[in-house]
């Protein structure tokens, strides 16, 4: 009976691994959330790096922590959904707030006149660019919420997290193709009088591709590393 009460080396290893992962996530999660606000990004980034270094040290010590590629992918998707949600939610429901009128119209003036031209003149407020509002209503409550949930499940190495990350990454391809086509259709009014016409569009649009470049990895990764 006494022998049963003693934890095996395996149990100790599992417990230490779990604790190391938890400790790393305690730095990375707040860091990632701060980065999704854009403004607090410079504070969030070092927190995230600190968490990454804790996880790397744990892996070097031989503890069973999450693979680094999964960590980076999961947090990248959290930030992608968070950044898109916060910008578009502000435009959707807080378009008359001072912070929104300052940040968004400055962005509109620099890159995309869809956020400057007739701003706050639609019955619903916010951007006046054709089609833009529909994307906000269509995507923020659906795909970005799903992506956030999927990324959390993925970081917990759950099977459903992996599956839903695949689903929402394909969603990402669909809305990105549609969104870029929409912007091109109305390029002559969205890039009129902005500081960086066309080239500006190129600079930021290319980064929107990053989150769904994970698709080939997600389809070919060994599914057995994710638990039911």
């Amino acid at each position, binding site marked *: 009976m006494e022998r049963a009460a003693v934890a095996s080396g395996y149990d100790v290893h599992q417990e230490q691994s779990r604790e190391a992962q938890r400790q790393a996530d305690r730095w990375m999660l707040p860091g990632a959330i701060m980065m999704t606000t854009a403004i607090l990004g410079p504070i969030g980034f070092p927190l995230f790096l600190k968490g990454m270094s804790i996880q790397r040290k744990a892996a070097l010590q031989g503890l069973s922590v999450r693979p680094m590629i999964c960590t980076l992918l999961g947090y990248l998707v959290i930030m992608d959904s968070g950044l898109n949600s916060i910008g578009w939610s502000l435009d959707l429901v807080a378009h008359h707030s001072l912070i929104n009128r300052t940040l968004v119209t400055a962005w509109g003036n620099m890159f995309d006149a869809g956020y400057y031209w007739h701003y706050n003149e639609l019955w619903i407020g916010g951007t006046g660019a054709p089609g833009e509002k529909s994307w906000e209503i269509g995507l923020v409550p659906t795909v970005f919420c799903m992506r956030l949930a999927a990324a959390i499940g993925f970081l917990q190495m759950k099977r459903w997290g992996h599956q839903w990350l695949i689903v929402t990454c394909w969603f990402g391809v669909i809305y990105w193709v549609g969104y870029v086509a929409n912007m*091109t259709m109305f*390029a002559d009014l969205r890039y009129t009088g902005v500081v960086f016409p066309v080239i500006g569009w190129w600079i930021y649009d290319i980064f929107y*591709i990053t989150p769904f470049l994970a698709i080939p*990895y997600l389809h*070919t990764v060994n599914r057995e590393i994710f638990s039911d």
Partner: protein
Amino acid sequence: MNDRHDKGIDAQDRRRKRALNAFQVLIYGYLFTMFLIQLHMYSVSDW
């Protein structure tokens, strides 16, 4: 760690890289096409 050098993993890595390359060609090709359309529009109307 030795598993990484198994033939199965190598083949899988190759397939993954090929899929990623094909996917990137498609996506960046589309982006570039849209960019060219916008450049054309820009040259015509000079906004």
